[in-house]
């Protein structure tokens, strides 16, 4: 059951009227919830990490390929290999699709 709650389109707006940063969660499902964990290190739509690569809005195929290569140790990493092994290939595909669009 991929979609369980339909959530309002949300836009979060910085107080500076001209500098508008929006974060949208159209639908909260298993993948949308799981993807929120990525924010801690990689940032969100409204915040970019100073030391981690951005992942939001990156092409889904590029992200999925990277996650699979990290999972299988074909691509060197510090912690992302360890993290990606916590998900099935299908879950990584869904995460890549979600992150590419949100």
């Amino acid at each position, binding site marked *: *059951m*991929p*979609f*369980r*709650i*339909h*959530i*309002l*389109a*949300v*836009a*979060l*707006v*910085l*107080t500076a*009227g001209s500098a*508008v940063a*929006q*974060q*949208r*969660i159209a*639908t*909260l*499902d*298993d993948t*949308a*919830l*799981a993807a*929120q*964990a990525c*924010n*801690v*290190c*990689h*940032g*969100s739509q409204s*915040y970019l*990490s*100073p*030391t*981690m690569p951005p992942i939001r809005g990156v092409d889904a195929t590029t992200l999925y390929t990277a996650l699979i290569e990290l999972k299988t140790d074909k691509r060197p990493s*510090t*912690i992302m290999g*360890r*993290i990606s*092994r*916590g*998900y099935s290939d299908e879950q990584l595909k869904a995460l890549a699709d979600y992150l590419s669009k949100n």
Partner: protein
Amino acid sequence: MTKTSFSRRNVLAGLGATAGLLAAPHIASAQASAGRVVVIGGGFGGATAARYVKLFSPDTDVVLVERDATYITCPFSNYVLAGIRDLNSITHRRDPLRQRFGVRLVRGEATAVDTNARSVKLKDGASLPYDRLVVAPGIELNYAGVPGWSEQAANTVMPHAWKAGPQTVLLRKQLEAMADGGTVIIAPPANPFRCPPGPYERVSMIAWYLKNHKPKSKILVLDAKDAFSKQGLFMAGWESQYPGMITWIAGKDGGKVESVDPKGMTVTAGFGKEKGAVINVIPPQTAGRIALDAGLAEANGWCAVDPASFASRKAQNVYVLGDASIAGAMPKSGTAANSQAKVVAANIAASLRGVTAPTAVYHNTCYSLVTPDYGISVSDTYRPGPQGVAVVPNSGGVSPARAEAAQRKAEANYTMGWYAGIIADTFG
């Protein structure tokens, strides 16, 4: 596939399509069509829960109750001890939660919870009704857990520095005042306690300071435990970076502290009595006081929860998360609390709508510095299981035992990125 339409969905979605979104949180707060959520505690767990309830359910009225005006993070407080960070850089305000996300901030101390009437009483006499309550009070220090020690001793001569703030400053000043050649004694508690790698990163960071300023000094770690988080990585790092400076004594070898004497500045452990120039007592802990007073804790002082939602096992419509909870395989860490809070927020949003919540998945990553250029980590993904929250098999783990300097340096850089990221994700 279940999709639930909400009565105000079109209204807010319409607003969301315009540039006039600044008003949306206030509209949501005023109309409050999706219930009221009260959050006790504005640390990593509570602040994240408040923010994400508003994200997942914007028309829910969210009230965050917090005693202190600012939040000084325990993560990175060890770097204040090392002299590579100052207290201001780890002190954060919660105003963005109100300004950007519409969370209502109430400065006060929760003193009682009536789970039948669904209301929280504050020290000033005010009452806050709730439909769902999040309890995220962190830890309570057990001063009586170390014979001879006391709150007064902690505030004057034997600081714990396990809640960042004045105690961190006191311990730093003691290190600065210490003569070269003195012994720093650090006494970590038995499990479970806040931040399992924390005492050992502290050892590393104090060693960094001593190596650079008082190189004849020693560190003696008197541990109640026989093993600790990232032990192999820490001990290899100590051997390579601080040879001969650090001695760790396991509980089984007489390391467990039996008593302390604040006047004589001595510690008595299983192996005998030792005098310290600086003594850092990290005491046993329980869930924060309000969780105990509200009857949410088990006999062991920690709060049992449903591993799929972090709903309290003791009270309906109440969620306990972060350090105060019994979280199975998850450690008591800022990242764990942040992760649990997102699951709690999703469950609250779903329950207020009367729909099924998404499936829980949790994460924890704990970075530690051995030196400012030498980082190590433990990272795990978790799912709810029949015995509680459990690590996903064949995933996670610690940094490799053998690694090039470049990898240690990369993890040190990521430590900085993690901190900036989690602060932005938690407080806005």
